[in-house]
């Protein structure tokens, strides 16, 4: 109630204020308009005064002589002064209070002037009354007061000093002033009444107009609000219509879809609607389906089991069910289906909507895929087994070949025999390299390649490679130089074996394809801010170069730049292919730039890992490689004195070769033909208190293989060193041996020096441990 009253009061205030504003505006407009009218009238009066003066008294005479009459000058000058100021105000400041009061004064003075100019004609006095009436056009009674005061003042002053000029009599009563003024006042009163009525009417008009404006405003506001509501409703209707159209279109699409949709009543379970795809697949018509329930097309369901199945949807514990089952067609054939079942509302009843996917084809494809996968896995396993067996089967005879070649080299003297044996050895080693490369490539392509990450010295690795390859370079009359540009890290995190392998491949290639000139190994460190530091190695040769079109192909396996049958340089074409892959594994890149006939540059980058806290070597030079192999070998020749070694090896050739090498190094060798014999001998010796210092255990033997023999020995508490000896060169094989209980691992073919060093190191270690105990 209070708020209504307050609002009503505010509205009335607004209305009153607006009404006042409109009235004021209207009055201001009248003032301005009347000012302008008076401006024109006064100019006309002035002109009329001049005309009157010129007409009535143009000249004043003295006998025959005449001159312009004073009245003419008075009409022009005094009339101009009387008229000029108010006209200026009317033009420059129309509507102001002072303007209309000045106009009122001026109008009365004009009357006085005209009366004088007309010789005081009584008719001219009507100008005063006419002027007052005209001034009433302002609807401002104050203007009439001003004009009346001027008239009264004029009559008073002149009536006092020269009554004859005003009243036309020589003597007059002082009341004549009031009599004359009274007529003016009478007119004023009439005009005041008229003005008051006019102003009241104006006020009423203003009130009506304000009221009308407010009504219009209210109506506009209501219309605007209503229009907005209608627009909102229209938008919602349009949206609803569009949604309905979309749903209708979507429903039509779903109805014609080959995907199956079944809708059945939630209580009776009878089908309510089934789309075209479902009808075509199930084979029933809609009329038939209306008399059926889902149980009728599900051979694996009964009414009870189906009711139990959909119970979670009915009680609301689940909103959706995903079911895989079988549907039976009208012709009796079954097909597997995957069903997405949910509860919904159709019209005013609850229904179940089943979106059914015929998964016959999917199941067939899944079956085929599974079979294909199993075949692929089997093939991969076969390949791996083949590679492992081939590696073993090739390495085993190669062990004998290379081993006995070494022995022969030490025992022949005739140069032609030495050359022949060296040729056998070189070809054997070449064959072994090819086998190793094939194994590496196979492991890389099978994704089974494993890298080591350890701290290594890049300068040392490069020095080793340079030292190793310098023999070949020197043999061809080439210079092999090592340069370092800028600082290089003292150590880095990488796989030193693989880095060495890469460099041997690349430098060996450079030497192979260079006839004259030199091969340079230029190393620098790339350590840019924000990037991982990398070691950059360029191998620059002055060889035959590579045609630009063949550069990419040199990285393909079994491919050389010269792919013709008449090529000059041999090689399997695996080195660069493997090296490139290895470089990528080491976090780097491998690129080649070459000029045919002038030489090639092979650029290798490998990741160094973090170089924080790693010393940088400035001004590095080629390190002196440890080439005292022969000395070590010679020293190793007698490093196994007084050691007893059990060699479990089934191959007679390898028995003879390895035992020969070990015996030559001073060891006492006991042979075991298989794992069982080895186990027995080791156990017996151990129990007799005279155990073997080291057991060399071949892992692939008849009766009892090396893995099982080692496991049993360890299970029986055998603690002395067991070194696995196998032709399996895969990394997984090494781990398998260590897992079984072996202390270390070495592959066939044996490296005589490495084998002696390895055996000696474990024998001495065991000896030290025994002494401590």
């Amino acid at each position, binding site marked *: 109630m209070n708020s209504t009253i307050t609002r009503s009061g505010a509205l009335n205030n607004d209305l009153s204020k607006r009404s006042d504003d409109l009235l004021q505006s209207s009055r201001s407009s009248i003032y301005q308009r009347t000012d302008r009218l008076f401006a024109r009238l006064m100019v006309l009066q002035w002109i009329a005064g001049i005309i009157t003066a010129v007409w009535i008294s143009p000249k004043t005479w003295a*006998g025959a002589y005449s001159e312009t009459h004073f009245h003419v000058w008075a009409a022009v000058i005094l009339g101009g002064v009387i008229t000029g100021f108010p006209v200026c105000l009317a033009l420059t400041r129309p509507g102001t209070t002072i303007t209309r009061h000045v106009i009122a004064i001026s109008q009365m003075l004009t009357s006085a002037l005209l009366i004088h100019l007309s*010789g005081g004609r009584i008719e001219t006095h009507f100008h005063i009354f006419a002027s007052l009436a005209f001034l009433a056009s302002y609807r401002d009674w104050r203007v009439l007061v001003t004009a009346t005061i001027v008239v009264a003042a004029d009559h008073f002053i002149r009536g006092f000093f*020269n009554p*004859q000029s005003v009243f036309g009599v020589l003597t007059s009563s002082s009341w004549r002033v009031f009599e004359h003024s009274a007529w003016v006042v009478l007119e004023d009163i009439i005009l005041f009444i008229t003005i008051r009525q006019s102003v009241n009417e104006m006020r009423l008009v203003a009130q009506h107009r304000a009221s009308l404006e407010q009504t219009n405003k209210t109506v506009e506001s209501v219309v605007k609000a209503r229009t907005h509501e209608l627009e909102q409703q229209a938008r919602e209707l349009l949206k609803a219509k569009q949604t309905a159209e979309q749903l209708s279109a979507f429903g039509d699409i779903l109805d014609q879809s080959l995907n199956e949709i079944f809708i059945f009543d939630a209580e009776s379970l009878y089908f309510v609607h089934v789309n075209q795809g479902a009808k075509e697949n199930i084979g029933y018509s809609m009329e038939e389906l209306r008399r059926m329930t889902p149980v009728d097309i599900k051979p694996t369901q009964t009414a009870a089991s189906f009711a139990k199945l959909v119970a979670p949807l009915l009680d609301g514990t689940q909103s959706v069910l995903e079911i895989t089952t079988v549907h039976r067609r009208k012709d009796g054939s079954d097909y597997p289906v995957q069903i997405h079942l949910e509860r919904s509302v159709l019209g005013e009843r609850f229904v179940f909507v089943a979106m059914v996917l015929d998964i016959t084809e999917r199941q067939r494809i899944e079956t085929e895929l599974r079979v294909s996968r199993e075949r692929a896995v089997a093939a991969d396993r076969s390949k791996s087994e083949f590679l492992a067996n081939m590696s073993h089967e090739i390495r085993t005879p190669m062990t004998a070949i290379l081993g006995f070649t070494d022995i022969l080299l030490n025992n022949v003297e005739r140069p032609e025999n030495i050359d022949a044996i060296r040729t056998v050895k070189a070809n054997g080693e070449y064959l072994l390299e090819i086998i190793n490369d094939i194994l590496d490539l196979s492991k890389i392509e099978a994704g089974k390649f494993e890298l080591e990450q350890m701290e290594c010295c890049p300068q040392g690795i490069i020095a080793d490679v340079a030292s190793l390859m310098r023999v070949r370079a020197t043999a061809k009359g080439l210079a092999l130089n090592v340069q370092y540009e800028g600082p290089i890290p003292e150590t880095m995190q990488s796989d030193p074996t693989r880095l060495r392998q890469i460099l041997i491949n690349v430098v060996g290639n450079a030497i192979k394809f260079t006839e004259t000139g030199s091969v340079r190994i230029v190393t620098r460190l790339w350590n840019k801010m924000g990037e991982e530091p990398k070691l950059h190695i360029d191998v620059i040769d002055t060889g035959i170069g590579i045609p630009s079109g063949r550069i990419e192909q040199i990285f393909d396996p079994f491919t050389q730049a010269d792919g013709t049958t008449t090529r000059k340089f041999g090689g399997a074409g695996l080195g660069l292919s493997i090296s490139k892959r290895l470089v990528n594994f080491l976090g780097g890149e491998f690129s080649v730039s070459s000029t045919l006939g002038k030489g090639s540059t092979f650029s290798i980058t490998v990741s160094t890992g973090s170089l924080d806290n790693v010393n940088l070597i400035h001004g590095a030079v080629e390190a002196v490689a440890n080439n005292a192999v022969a000395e070590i070998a010679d020293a190793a020749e007698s490093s196994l004195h007084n050691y007893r070694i059990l060699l479990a090896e089934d191959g007679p050739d390898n028995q003879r070769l390895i035992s020969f090498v070990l015996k030559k190094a001073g060891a006492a060798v006991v042979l075991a033909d298989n794992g069982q014999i080895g186990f027995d001998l080791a156990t017996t010796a151990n129990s007799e208190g005279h155990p073997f210092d080291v057991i060399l255990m071949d892992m692939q033997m008849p009766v009892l293989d090396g893995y099982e023999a080692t496991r049993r020995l360890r299970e029986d508490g055998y603690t002395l060193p067991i070194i696995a000896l196998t032709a399996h060169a895969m990394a997984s094989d090494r781990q398998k041996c260590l897992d079984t209980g072996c202390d270390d691992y070495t592959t066939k073919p044996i490296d005589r020096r490495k084998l002696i060093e390895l055996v000696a190191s474990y024998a001495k270690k065991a000896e030290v441990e025994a002494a401590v105990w």
Partner: protein
Amino acid sequence: MCTFFAQKTASSGDEQMKLLHHLKTRWLVLPTLTLVWLGMVGIGLSWMWKYEATPGVVTAAQMQWPDDSQIERNPDCPTLVVFAHPHCPCTRATIGELAMVVDHCPERVAVRVLFFKPPGFSAGWEKTDIWSSAGAIPGAKVVCDVNGTEAKRFRATTSGHSLLYHQDGQLLFSGGITGSRGHSGDNAGRSAIESFVMNGQSNQQQQTFVFGCALLEKEVACGTECQR
């Protein structure tokens, strides 16, 4: 900071003073102009009043009807001789007052109106609306006074100069019959004439100012005794 606010305050104060001064000036200019305007108009009107109240030159009239006058004097009643300039605007009021005299004193006064005409002026120069008005007065004889001969005889120098002579030629009244230049209405001259004519005597003054143009050239009019 304080200096800044002080400057800002000072600046604001200056602006306010300027605004106030501007408003004052604006408020004062129009009233001042209005007062100046009123003053100018007042001066103009006072000049006008002064002009209207300024009489013409009056000389001592002939106390006896001049013998050499060519104008007929009525032996039965007083004769009123009015000298007028045919182009004097003020004389319209005199003719009007003369008509009033005739109207008030019918057949008791003989009226002679003499219109001055300078020699050499074209014929009809003297026949103005004033001549016509005078001619329309019942019993009034209007004649042309070429070269002001009669005016000189009667020593009349200002248009509107009226002389009332007794039947025996004795001067009864001399002066104007308007209160000011060109203004009709009650005046001492007309009252005196009417009193002489009607009563044979008058307690009004026998001589009044004449408001009108000079009838003769100044040197002629003021050759001897000039009286204003």
